[in-house]
């Protein structure tokens, strides 16, 4: 339980960027042994606030008091010295080094002779890790760890550095359910030890499971600061988006057509084993599995990014030999990858170029690129999908996650894909954009498109899919009509 000692207090924080007021008079405080959830849509100001706390951005207006001491100019160095550690979404560990070397990064313990004392460092690492309830071997190479384990090493590193305040930016976005639970117990251990945790997440369930208090930002202003047990999901969602979301997940009753896509006995190395399923027009089929279940690889193989070891794929009853994404695309498949920044978008190109990137061949006659045609097509999707950006000439890299995802979707709508593969379509995007993506998926279904989706968020699967296929260790272990199943059943099957 949080006691009353204030660890950190930020008050009246204001930050201007050219043309944008990123933070407007925001005040946030953190108590000893408290887990504070920081909520807000993408672009609400969460990252800016954290960057000011870590010293990455200069404090222009406002006060930061850490343990009773005011810090006028918080530099990255002072921030570290004050015990503030940020664990970013994209982990910054040294992959080719060992766990121990990561924990002790930047310093070495030496013995009397001045040589590196591996023994002592190993003992200390082990102590910290076991304190966190983890059994990671300190001499294991970082690159052999799972994302969840890497996070725990990052936390261990922070504790070794005497962290008083740990900020976690979407720590669970790449974790499976088991790892999430481990992380929670680690966070609770931190709380027992009086560490203050700022926990940033888009997932409502997590906020209610782990936080003591939540602060909500919207458009650079703090719009809510409530004890977690005194609020509920609807109140928070409304605070975050600033409007009443009458239905967060709008599932419509859409007529299903004939089978348009079928997979028979698909195998890829030992990652995907004998997978068979089909998809109808207007249907959303979701795949659920924990990390390593093979769902991501399955999508990569279907789209031709990886080559199947054996098996058959049919579109409209005709077999296709997908040896590369080009063949998949020409057969009517579209692919929304899990990593939109690395695989979904050309960040340095503008929106229109991204929207037409899978359909360049249709932009004008012969080999000439007709820019007017391109503009018309891009504008159409820009407006239809309500992409929030100054214009179609804006660089894709400057958009928020939700709007970037809409651009990736637009790319395949432009290509007129009839079978859409969505790999974690709402990962890391805000509540408002999420429901817009669901809406788009259902609009597509009404036009006869079939959607295959991989998601690690069960509420999302239960809300928008027609059927769920559960995978474990590369195999299909269950298939359900969505409305006849529930979270417990799916989870149990996936983790058994």
């Amino acid at each position, binding site marked *: 339980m949080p006691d009353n000692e204030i660890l950190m207090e930020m008050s009246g924080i204001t930050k201007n960027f050219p043309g944008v007021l990123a933070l407007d008079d925001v005040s946030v405080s953190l108590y000893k042994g408290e887990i504070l959830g920081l909520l807000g849509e993408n672009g609400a100001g969460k990252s800016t606030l954290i960057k000011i706390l870590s010293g990455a951005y200069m404090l222009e207006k406002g006060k930061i008091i850490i343990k009773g001491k005011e810090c006028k100019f918080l530099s990255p160095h002072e921030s570290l010295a004050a015990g503030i550690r940020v664990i970013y979404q994209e982990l910054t560990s040294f992959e080719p080094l060992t766990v121990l070397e990561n924990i002790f990064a930047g310093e070495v313990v030496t013995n009397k002779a001045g040589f590196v004392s591996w023994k002592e460092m190993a003992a200390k690492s082990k102590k910290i890790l076991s304190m966190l309830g983890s059994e990671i071997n300190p001499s294991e190479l970082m690159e052999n760890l799972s994302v969840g384990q890497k996070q725990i090493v990052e936390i261990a590193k922070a504790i070794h550095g005497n962290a008083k305040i740990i900020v976690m930016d979407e720590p669970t976005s790449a974790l499976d359910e088991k790892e999430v639970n481990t992380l929670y117990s680690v966070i609770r251990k931190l709380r027992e030890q009086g560490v203050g945790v700022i926990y940033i997440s888009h997932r409502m369930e997590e906020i209610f499971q782990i936080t003591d208090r939540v602060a909500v930002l919207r458009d650079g202003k703090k719009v809510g600061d409530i004890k977690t047990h005194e609020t509920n999901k609807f109140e928070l969602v409304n605070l975050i988006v600033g409007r009443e979301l009458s239905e967060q997940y709008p599932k419509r009753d859409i007529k299903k057509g004939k089978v348009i896509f079928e997979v028979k006995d698909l195998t890829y190395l030992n990652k995907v084993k004998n997978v068979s399923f089909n998809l109808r027009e207007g249907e959303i089929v979701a795949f659920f599995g924990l990390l390593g279940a093979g769902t991501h690889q399955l999508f990569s193989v279907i789209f031709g990014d990886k080559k199947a070891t054996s098996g058959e794929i049919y579109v409209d009853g005709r077999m296709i030999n997908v040896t590369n994404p080009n063949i*998949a695309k020409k057969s009517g498949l579209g692919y929304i990858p899990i990593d939109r920044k690395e695989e979904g978008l050309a*960040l340095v190109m503008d929106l229109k170029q991204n929207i037409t*990137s899978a359909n360049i061949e249709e*932009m004008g006659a012969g*080999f000439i*690129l007709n820019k007017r045609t391109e503009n018309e097509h891009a504008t159409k999707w820009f407006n239809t999908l309500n992409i929030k950006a100054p214009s179609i*000439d*804006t660089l894709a890299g400057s958009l928020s996650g939700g709007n970037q995802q809409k651009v990736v979707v637009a790319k395949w709508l432009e290509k007129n894909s009839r079978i859409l593969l969505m790999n974690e379509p709402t990962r890391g995007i805000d509540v408002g954009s999420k429901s817009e993506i669901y809406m788009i998926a259902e609009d597509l279904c009404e036009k006869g498109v079939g959607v295959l989706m991989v998601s690690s968020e069960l509420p999302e699967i239960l809300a928008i899919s027609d059927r769920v296929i559960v995978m474990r260790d590369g195999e299909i272990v269950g298939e359900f009509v969505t409305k006849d199943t529930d979270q417990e059943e799916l989870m149990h099957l996936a983790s058994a």
Partner: protein
Amino acid sequence: MKKKSFKITDTYILLIILVVLVAFFSLVNRQFIAYNNISTMLKNMVLTGVLALGLTPLMIARGLDISFGNSISLTSVIMAVLYTVFGLNLWLTLLIGILVAALIGFINGLLIEKFNLIPIILTLGTMAILQALALVTANTFTQTYSILMLTDQLYYFSTRTFLKIPLPLYVLIVLIFIFWFVLTKTKFGRTIYLIGANPKVAYLCGVKVKKVKILLYIFMGFITGIGGVLSVALTGVGASYQGAKLVLPTLSAVLLGGISLMGGSGSALGTLIGVLIVTVIFNGLSVLNVPSYYIQLFQGIALILIVAAYEIRNKKIQII
């Protein structure tokens, strides 16, 4: 629209640098703007210009070839041997020269793309091999390293003018137009930029990335072949050391013109201005009678400054 105006500013800066340089050299030495000097300068620019253009799409798509200088050495030697020693028909000789260079480009591309090699290392290897082959070929057939190849047609081509403009310059002008057109007005050009911006995204958009890149290496080889022909025409010899000295100014020009080793950026016009600036600097220095080793010193410094300047600017943009 925003991005466009930004790009123009970049080109403007380069244009201003060019104008300042021309003004400076003209003021220091009147000879610089004499017709004779300008005509020589532009003629000398043709080779660098042609090669820089060939590199432009390749480097936009994250490829790189540094073996082109030695490829010119080898092809010019092969052409001179075929023509002088074996008495082959001139046009057939030139055609074979161009095809050999294109083949070298194909081999570079094939190895890089099939085995995922780092272009600069692979072409560093081919560079050494081509240089050795040039020396061996020249020495085997003529016991010298530089073979005369004088023909009326090539002499005519390299010395005459049309509308007061030297004929070789027309080759450059035509190529500039072609490259500008392909890069800005065609679907293929867009594909090249897409690959450069993010090869994985391009691949998942259905682009056959490896095929396109191998094609660009072949183009580069083809352009290198044209460079070989130009080199023989302008000097009258097929020399085994002919091309090596072209690499540095060509790469400097391309990088100055806005092409990044990270791919995705650059244009035919940017490259042209880069070539003009590099040419003006080196010609200006020679007109001022700066010794050639100092000019080389300056070349090295200039390359480092160019890369550093772009790096610093990109960092600034990221921070904003």
